[in-house]
């Protein structure tokens, strides 16, 4: 086989070496890593803000920061973590890196649009963070920006916040269009949809949600900015407007947004588990249909966030039932993952530890989610720390654990080197203990009535809050082994070879790191991406 060197494919206009990560590169792998690193920097910023929140909540009084600063901090923390860390990384980073490999293509369908989508993120992020420093006028109405709160708090920061979220929404929509076109239209000849690795299905479902729901948020925020700047009254009750309409439109995006954050994580876990358990993925077809069921149900359950907003009984009934139904496809996926592990030859490396912890954490978050869908219980814990605990079990215990697991799993693909396992396990241990210590007590706090988004609390809650803050400290420390690991192994880590996990999915069937146009020669046709224990081991 003649191996063409990457330079043969080069378009000489594209910069080479590390400089390309700071350029308007059209290579999907470069863009994927740009998303990943950019997102991780924002994760550190958002984490520092979480540190401020947990330090403030160490004691019942607002003595560390003022009440206004506390509100600004939690607003920025939520917005950064959702729009600049989780959504761009779990969609943009891994999606851009992996999807073209999975469909046997050399790049995404629209490489320029792809680069534009990424380069909207850093300016939006800088804009958002800079608004934090507008003295006394940063956005402080939470990541939900509910009116009338967002209309009565200082306008300058709120408008910058809206502008930033609009840019990020645009980036997300462009990315979604690109994924849909790539998966549906750019597959290598002979590759049928039902042969695709599951992450493709997850990204297809996610992108459908992005395309259908993000524009509604954009429209809503434009109306909100009219209310703030031009003093219209769409959402201003004193001018005849209607705040509940804002909530409906906001949650029409922001409930699917949970699936935009979690479905790709489901997909990534479905890639990691079979490889490290050396077994085919259990129930591929049911996995695909479950994803599509979650996409459909995810679009029609938004008002379960609004049970205390004067929703009529028929609406409560419908949204309770529809929400509870989501547990069915999600449950199918969980049992499929467990069945994949069952009797497998499990390698308990860092990637696998994070993935298994994801299953545990997400079951907790999922069960509290079903509980929250029930109207009487929801009314009891609405706007308390129970909701905060539930939410973080989903997006941190769920998605962020998968992001870390995926990092250990695909780092050899990105760099050709393996991450250090000892540091990886230390990272896992600190994250897992810290995470559960931080967020499990919040369920008790919420059940006992501690409201969220308030800088002060009843002194009776002190012990549980301090426990939670200790957990947050452990989570902060846990990033150190990760950072050290990534930097040290990038320089002199163990060489991984092209396929360190003996995987069958297409991205491992080329060199690590891959050549510029992904394949040396034609893309392979992978009809059974999960055929472990059938071909490879039989030969070995």
């Amino acid at each position: 086989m003649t191996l063409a060197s990457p330079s043969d494919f080069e378009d000489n206009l594209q910069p080479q070496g590390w400089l390309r990560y700071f350029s308007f590169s059209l290579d999907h792998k470069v863009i994927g890593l740009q998303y990943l690193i950019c997102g991780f920097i924002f994760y550190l910023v958002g984490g520092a803000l979480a540190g401020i929140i947990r330090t403030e909540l160490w004691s019942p009084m607002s003595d560390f920061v003022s009440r206004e600063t506390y509100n600004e901090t939690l607003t920025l923390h939520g917005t950064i973590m959702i729009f600049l860390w989780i959504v761009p990384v779990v969609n943009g980073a891994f999606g851009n890196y992996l999807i073209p490999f999975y469909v046997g293509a050399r790049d995404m369908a629209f490489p320029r649009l792809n680069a534009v989508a990424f380069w909207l993120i850093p300016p939006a992020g800088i804009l958002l963070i800079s608004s934090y420093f507008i003295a006394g006028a940063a956005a402080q109405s939470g990541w939900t920006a509910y009116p009338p709160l967002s209309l009565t708090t200082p306008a300058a920061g709120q408008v910058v916040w809206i502008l930033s979220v609009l840019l990020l929404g645009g980036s997300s929509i462009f990315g979604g269009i690109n994924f849909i076109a790539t998966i549906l239209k750019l597959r290598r000849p002979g590759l049928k949809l039902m042969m695709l690795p599951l992450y493709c299905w997850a990204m297809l479902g996610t992108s459908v949600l992005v395309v259908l729901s993000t524009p509604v948020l954009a429209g809503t925020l434009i109306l909100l900015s009219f209310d703030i700047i031009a003093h219209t009254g769409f959402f201003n009750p004193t001018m005849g407007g209607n705040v509940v309409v804002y909530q409906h439109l906001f949650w029409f995006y922001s409930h699917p947004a949970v699936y935009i954050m979690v479905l790709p994580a489901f997909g990534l876990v479905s890639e990691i588990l079979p490889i490290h358990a050396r077994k085919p993925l259990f129930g591929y077809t049911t996995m695909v249909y479950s994803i599509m069921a979650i996409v459909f149900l995810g679009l029609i359950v938004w008002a379960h966030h609004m049970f205390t907003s004067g929703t009529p009984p028929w609406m409560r009934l419908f949204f309770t039932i529809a929400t509870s139904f989501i547990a069915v496809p999600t449950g199918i996926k969980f049992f499929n993952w467990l069945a994949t592990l069952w009797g497998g030859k499990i390698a308990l490396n860092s990637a696998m530890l994070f993935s298994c912890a994801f299953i545990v954490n997400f079951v907790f978050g999922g069960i509290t989610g079903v509980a929250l869908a029930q109207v009487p219980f929801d009314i009891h814990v609405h706007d308390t720390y129970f909701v905060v605990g539930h939410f973080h079990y989903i997006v941190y215990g769920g998605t962020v654990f998968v992001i870390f697991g995926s990092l250990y799993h695909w780092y050899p693909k990105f760099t050709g080197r393996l991450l250090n396992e000892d540091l990886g396990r230390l990272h896992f241990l600190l994250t897992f203990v810290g995470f559960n210590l931080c967020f499990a007590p919040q369920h008790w706090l919420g059940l006992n009535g501690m409201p969220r988004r308030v800088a002060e609390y009843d002194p009776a809650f002190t012990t549980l809050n301090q426990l939670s803050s200790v957990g947050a400290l452990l989570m902060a420390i846990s990033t150190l082994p990760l950072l050290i690991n990534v930097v040290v192994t990038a320089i002199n880590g163990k060489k991984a070879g092209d396929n360190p996990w003996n995987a069958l999915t297409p991205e491992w069937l080329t060199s690590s790191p891959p050549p510029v146009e992904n394949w040396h020669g034609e893309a392979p046709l992978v009809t059974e991406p999960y055929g472990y224990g059938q071909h490879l081991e039989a030969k070995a």
Partner: protein
Amino acid sequence: MTSTTPLQDSTAIEARQEQAEEAHGDFRLFGLATFLVADGMTFAGFFAAYLTFKAVNPLPEGGIYELELLLPTINTVVLIISSFTFHRAGKECRAGQLGASRLWLGITGALGAIFLAGQMVEYFNLPFGLTDNLFASTFYALTGFHGLHVTLGVICITIVALQTRPGGRISATDHFGLEAAELYWHFVDGIWVVLYGILYLL
């Protein structure tokens, strides 16, 4: 199953890229259609907001305006006709009649401009301003957002018409720009018909 092709020179790369393009066809229109679905959802959000406001938020005394129907109806007819003229332009282009195509594009662009002018006349004659009440705000938000789309469409039509000149980018076989503009224009027309229905007639 997998054959490997050595790629030593640029002609081989180009040949392979052409092969790939043939295998996949042109998916740019598909991408645009996906974007228009997203754009349509923005309008759907606005429509839903407007209808909910109408259903649950009673307007104050004297805040209910009778909208003049003549001008918007003429505008609706103008916009619907422009969809047909654009379709004709596309047909001429595919038949290789670039001159005729340019003429029909010119007519389409002119109809779009007439629509915008009509919109302006309507704005200047309305008895209410942006912040007068909830209906007024929603009216301007909906028609304004749609007007923005029409403006963008007229700009696109102008560009495409210029590209059909002899030696321009568009030819009988290579006319993605024209098709994209056409798809977009039909979308903008379709949105207007819905908007006209719920804003003026309902």
